[in-house]
């Protein structure tokens, strides 16, 4: 299987879907002409391939970008719009939350809003809290939206293609550090169903539920613990909404122990949802308290040692796992 970075895999997904379906178009700040000259980025080269009708650079106007998607989707197009950095989700949030998510319901099921909002996310590039602020939990707390946050290049491709074909509004969070992380990616028609978690590493002793970039941290910790005879199961949610409760419950019923790992800040993070689901439905299987390994409740700081402190690492995860064994 070809090795691609996640950025390239997303690029392939966009290219394939745009080729397949003329109603798919891209819009956003710099999705066409860009300040970057990097083939690893999801929209690289697409303006050249598909021309300015399909690839639309916009003014710096996040509300209008999201509104464009809402209106065009209602008309039957399949907009794929980009929000440049996760904190700017705020600026598009009225259109996404009060409109994309609700207008189908408000129409009594008459209209559909098949749009994708790609949001570039994650910390790790030293730009501070106005560029790094993971808000997937916001999107997940909004009925009507589907919420995806892939961890591997293959999943990114397969889920973006599924998202574009889904008749519902999908918020698709892409971790920017992963754009440069390679992995095997199936060529052509590779679809990953929305709403299916994936056991990325089967294990016996403890379940680590995670998503996006933290999958790498989970693997690192799992390898380290494997040396000590501790067998970690890693469940990559991939999709937060709809949540694959069955997969979470199956894993926890097997291992009896749960750690939830995410990069977003702790209080109100999506780990709480996972915890609640498990506590509601797999209570009797639990052998130990829950542990959450997350970003601390601070804005993402800019200075390298501070930012490193912010981002959860394998050491913290190992410690958390040891603490409940």
């Amino acid at each position, binding site marked *: 299987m070809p090795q691609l970075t996640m950025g390239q895999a997303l690029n392939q997904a966009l290219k394939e879907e745009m080729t397949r379906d003329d109603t798919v*178009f891209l819009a956003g700040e710099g999705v066409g002409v860009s300040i970057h000259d990097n083939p690893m980025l999801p929209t690289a080269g697409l303006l050249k391939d598909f021309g300015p009708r399909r690839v639309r650079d916009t003014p710096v106007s996040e509300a209008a970008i999201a*509104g*464009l998607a809402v*209106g065009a989707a209602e008309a039957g197009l399949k907009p794929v719009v980009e929000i440049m950095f996760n904190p700017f989700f705020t600026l598009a949030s009225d259109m996404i939350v009060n*409109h994309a998510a609700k207008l*189908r319901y408000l129409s*009594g099921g008459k209209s559909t809003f098949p749009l994708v909002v790609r949001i570039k996310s994650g910390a790790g590039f030293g730009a501070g809290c106005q560029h790094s602020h993971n808000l997937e939990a916001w999107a997940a707390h909004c009925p009507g939206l589907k919420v995806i946050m892939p961890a591997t290049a293959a999943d990114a491709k397969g889920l973006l293609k599924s998202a574009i074909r889904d008749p519902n509004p999908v918020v698709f969070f892409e971790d920017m550090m992963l754009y440069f992380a390679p992995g095997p990616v199936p060529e052509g028609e590779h679809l990953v169903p929305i709403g299916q978690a994936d056991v990325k590493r089967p294990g016996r002793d403890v379940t680590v539920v995670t998503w996006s970039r933290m999958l790498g941290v989970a693997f690192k910790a799992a390898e380290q613990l494997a040396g000590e005879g501790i067998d970690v199961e890693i469940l990559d949610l991939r999709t937060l909404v709809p949540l694959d409760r069955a997969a979470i419950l199956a894993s926890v019923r097997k291992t009896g122990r749960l750690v939830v790992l995410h990069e977003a800040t702790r209080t109100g993070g999506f780990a709480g949802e996972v915890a609640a689901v498990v506590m509601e439905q797999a209570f009797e299987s639990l052998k130990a308290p829950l542990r959450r390994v997350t970003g601390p409740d601070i804005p993402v700081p800019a200075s390298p040692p501070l930012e490193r402190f912010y981002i959860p690492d394998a050491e913290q995860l190992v410690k958390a796992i040891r603490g409940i064994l």
Partner: protein
Amino acid sequence: MTIPKDKMLEMLHFLMLSRRFEEALTDLCRIEGKIPGMMILCTGQEAVGVGMVAALRPEDVIITNHRSHAHLLTKGADPKVLMAEIYGKRTGCNKGKSGTLHLALPEIGAPCTSTVVGAGPPIAVGRAFAQQYRNEPGITVCFVGDGATGEGSFHEALNLASLWRLPVIFVCENNRYAGAQRQEEHTRIENIADRAAGYRMPGVVVDGNDAMSVYTTALDARARAAAGEGPTLIECKTYRWRGHGESDPQLYQPKEEIAAWRALCPVARMRDAVRARGLISAEDLKAMEARVETLVQEAIRFAEESPYPEPHEALEDVYA
């Protein structure tokens, strides 16, 4: 330009229908428990919606706001399904999910009524973009209030619409108030239409109580949009006879101001124009009035007799 007789009569019909539809609502929402939620009426400003929509074609789309009744009726909404929705009945155009504030009728080209002030313009931009993208003949019209032009989304949308020369008309229904704030309390400019220049877009001011002026202005703007010449901002000066909603005692609206504008009734104005031009006999006018009355009474009866949705139906229609 002389407006054809049929168009004149059509506009008169919709002016009378909108007025009677809302007069009925005024009465109905006084009856405890009959009509849920807020009741927001366009009484006195009907000429804007009627004149504007009368200039449109079936393939055209409107994106409206909380004050939507005249817009929707003129676009062809069945008064029955509107009324049933306002009652919260299952037979309403949105199965009771939207109520009066978000009436959505994609089947007549009125797919989105947002009650988030200022949310219409970006969505209209998207709708018009789709028309341009697919080279369709239709255009999009977006209704906003004067207050809505204070929202950032209005600005972003007009800039983008002009940049891409989208087939869209922004209609500012300036009824002098945004909630309890008079125009001079929410902006220092006198003509909202002057904002159009900030996007290199034509801006036009029109007498919003004169359906005929609105209609002819709309035709021009429609022609521009359809010809690929881009958007227009039309400001229609009008007035809200009633409060923001029916629970508003209108303490901040001077009584003389209301009286002065009532004297400029858009329905009477059109009726007089039609009569003056000899386009309708006294008898036919009576018949028209009777037809309107029947439509409204049928709508009420339909709504009254319709069932409420079953509670669990609330769970439907979230996802496709």
